[in-house]
């Protein structure tokens, strides 16, 4: 017994040792820039090549206040959430549906390997190229979508998609949805494969149909993976940059402007307000962390 204990003790050091590369790389390449960015938010660092900046001693939170009172920031924050929800809900629904289809033992789908491979493919092209392609597709007054609508007689004249807030948002949400549902599906299928097959066999013996099996076995056992999907999608969605910037530069009337584009604009679109950009970044970080904690809390495994 003592021998066993000693052994465990001696192995513990490998836990530390093997985590070390991760920890060092994280501290150097990730944490330092985060702290640096956080500090910038409390300074007067703006303008090009400015090396002579100072902490705002008399009004430490000035940049944060400026950002929180900034109407465009508020608009962008709202847009970011709206766009994420608009793409995430259909995305998770379709991904779950496909997962249920492709993991069903009762209705085996032929060629599902092919479908799985193909559905992830939109993710291979850069978001920027996809955004530009879709901008062209929905061109006005001439563009493939309008050409089709008019020639089919669905509309008498071309529709100005990119000048309409709702249409632009739905297009962007669709692109995001279309680029990511395959990825989400692959992760979810992995989660289902990890569920103990005995549970499914027991259910089958009990005569549960696909629908019941899915809701009563798959979903509850998928909780950890769903949390993972939800959080990674939220992080990605709330940081969406390329799509908003390249599809229509946040227009029309800022209706597709995301916070990442807002932050980029603060820092690079003319005035080089690094301090305000940093403050906005930190505000976004706090918001994302807050929601992630809520998601964790709601989705936690109540048994443990």
């Amino acid at each position, binding site marked *: 017994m003592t021998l066993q204990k000693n052994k465990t003790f001696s192995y513990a050091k490998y836990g530390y040792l093997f*985590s070390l590369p991760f920890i060092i790389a994280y501290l150097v390449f990730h944490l330092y820039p985060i702290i640096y960015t956080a500090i910038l938010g409390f300074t007067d660092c703006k303008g090009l090549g400015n090396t002579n900046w100072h902490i705002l001693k008399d009004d430490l939170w000035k940049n944060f206040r400026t950002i929180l009172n900034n109407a465009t920031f508020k608009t962008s924050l709202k847009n970011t959430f709206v766009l994420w929800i608009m793409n995430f809900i259909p995305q998770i629904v379709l991904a779950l549906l496909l997962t249920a289809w492709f993991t069903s033992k009762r209705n085996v789908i032929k060629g599902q390997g092919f479908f799985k491979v193909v559905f992830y493919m939109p993710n291979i092209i850069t978001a920027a190229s996809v955004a530009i392609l879709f901008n062209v597709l929905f061109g006005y007054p001439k563009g493939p979508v309008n050409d089709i609508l008019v020639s089919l007689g669905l509309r008498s004249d071309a529709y100005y998609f990119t000048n309409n807030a709702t249409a632009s948002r739905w297009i962007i949400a669709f692109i995001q949805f279309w680029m990511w549902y395959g990825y989400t599906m692959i992760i979810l299928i992995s*989660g289902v494969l990890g569920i103990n097959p005995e549970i499914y066999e027991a259910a089958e013996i009990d005569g549960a149909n696909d629908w019941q099996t899915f809701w009563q076995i798959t979903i509850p056992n998928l909780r950890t993976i769903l949390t993972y999907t939800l959080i990674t999608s939220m992080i990605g969605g709330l940081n969406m940059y390329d799509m908003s910037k390249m599809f229509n530069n946040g227009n029309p009337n800022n209706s597709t402007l995301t916070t990442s584009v807002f*932050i980029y604009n603060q820092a690079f679109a003319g005035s080089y307000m690094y301090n305000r950009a940093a403050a906005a970044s930190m505000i976004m970080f706090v918001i994302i962390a807050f929601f992630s904690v809520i998601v964790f809390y709601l989705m936690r495994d109540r048994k443990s």
Partner: protein
Amino acid sequence: MNKLENRNGNPVYKTIIYIVCIFLTVLSLFPFIVMVINSTRNTPQIQQHAVSLIPSNHLAQNWAVFNGKTFDPIRGFFNSLIISSGSTVCTIYFSTLTAYALVAYNWKLRNPFFTFILCVMMIPAQITSIGFYQFMYKIHMTNNFLALILPAIAAPQCVFFMRQFMLASLPLELLDSARIDGSREFNTFNRISLPIMKPAMATQGIFSFVFSWNQLFLPSILLTNNKLYTLPLMVSQLKGDIYKVEYGAVYLGLTLSVLPLFVIYFALSKYIIAGVALGGVKG
């Protein structure tokens, strides 16, 4: 959905599934088709009708545009390959190692460390790019591929994925028997755990490689020497002329920059087809 369905399934239900899947397949392939066809069309053709399903005969002409530009697909390909494979190898290997530390050993700070990883997973990397750039600049790591490779060692999302997979697939008894055989810990990891982790490594490898390959913002501010440009950076250069964009060449460039991804993707796709089992236990 139907109480009467048997092992062969319900034909109506299955037909619906096939229709949806085929529709999604068309949607997925569409941009690639446009891209490839547009690389054979010239700029005015593309400007007049951006989307066409009829190839044209200007492929050679588009290729010739590259000669006049600083577009060197071979060099760009190798630069991209070094960065992407370097960072993918870092991400996969060290994430697996970290996950191994979390699964195979019982150490005091194990749970706090896992909580730490869950927390930092939430920190978006993009928002700190200003700080990252300034730092790299200070330590003279601009124009150095390592600045794009080494940070990949710490990939919290990948660690999480690997840990979940390991929980489901790595029998700890196997490690014990290896120890009895006198295998050293690092060897056990490399010889016994890594092969078992292959499917998860391949899946994450695809994600990580695609992400790294398509990265544009960081490379564009870190790499200013055009000999070091990645392939996607070179493609973005093709659009650089404000008054005269050679769209045919841009599409050809895009096609070229996606091709290597295809090769890697299809080489590893058997793991996506087979799927990897992820443990649902939170631990």
